[in-house]
């Protein structure tokens, strides 16, 4: 499960930024087309954060909808799934969102 490795990245980036302060909450931005499942991240987070300054922290995940621009007609296309066609029939879409894998912010406990 690749979510395990991804969660290790999250914990290591946040722990480094937090220095030794305790982290209360971590906010992520996960694109809906990214092949990363929020539920799996939640599960892995509890396991991976054990024994770190992130232990017990809340994981907040903001999902980002998939959007694209049609290369043929220029229309904005909502990508509800990874394989979609424009209303004009074209499948040549330039993706502009939906693949995000970012750590937005963390909340630190009062010292």
């Amino acid at each position, binding site marked *: 499960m690749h979510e395990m490795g991804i969660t290790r990245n999250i914990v290591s980036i946040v722990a480094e930024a937090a220095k030794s302060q305790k982290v209360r909450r971590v906010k992520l931005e996960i694109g809906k087309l990214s*092949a990363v499942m929020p539920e799996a991240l939640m599960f892995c987070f509890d396991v991976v954060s054990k024994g770190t300054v992130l232990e017990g922290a809340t994981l907040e995940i903001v999902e980002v909808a998939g959007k694209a621009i049609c290369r043929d007609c220029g229309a904005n296309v909502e990508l509800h799934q990874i*394989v979609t066609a424009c209303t004009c029939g074209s499948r040549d879409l330039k993706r502009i969102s939906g693949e995000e894998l970012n750590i937005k912010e963390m909340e630190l406990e009062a010292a």
Partner: protein
Amino acid sequence: MCGTCGCSEGNKATVIDLQTGEHTHIDAEGNEIIHTHDHDHSHNHNHEQDHKHDLSSVSAHANAHGTTVALEQAIMQKNDALAIRNRAWFSGREILALNLVSSPGSGKTTILERTIIDLKGKTPICVIEGDQQTANDAQRIKDSGAPSVQINTGTGCHLEADMVMVGLKALKPTAGSIVMIENVGNLVCPALFDLGEMAKVAILSVTEGEDKPLKYPHMFQASDLMLLNKIDLLPHLDFDVKACLAYAKQVNPNIEIIQLSAKTGEGMADWYTWLDNQSAKAVAQAFV
């Protein structure tokens, strides 16, 4: 734990150089653990851990009030940064690097064996083999006449950029050559891990379902080329080639498709032409 020598390093991958027989480990942080083995097996461990610290240092101005601190960092930043480094390394040497991805058993190694033999004396090729266990595939490559390193990812289901970097150190590919990176047989997470390749090549064999591109769209969207392998078996199967090609194009309208058989050699010439064109592109793109 290392499957080759039995020593435990808490590492995430092992890199075996088939030319020298030596191996190194990569730890969870992506650092190479250099490891000199004497032949009498007195473990003479020489742990060189070069600690590279985060490339992007966060200005986390956290004051002590239960503050929210903006981070704005990419989760994949470490891998992506190393992939960029690999890509620049390839580019400066006019090397064509390809990341071969597929389900287990589609014929990646067989295609490489035949390619190495057919292009002998024309195009220098070396291979980085990724498998969870065994050095069998790297040995097959070596037997075909090309330098190879084996990366064993253990429980890891994909290659990462740091592993490729360590593999390159061992292989030292020559300028103008082709570096083939055979990823671990898996159609999911290799799409998330950039290795610094110029293109991904997805291999699908006709013994799999024709709807694979629809089931694993991320991988087929990320690939520039699809090789449809084992077409020698078509007379014995119900595989619908037309539907398969349509599904692949539906998922990725720009994907190129070559039908071939690594067994009979049919269609291999088209693959070699594609490689030639890509090599020319690698040269044209160098230093830009």
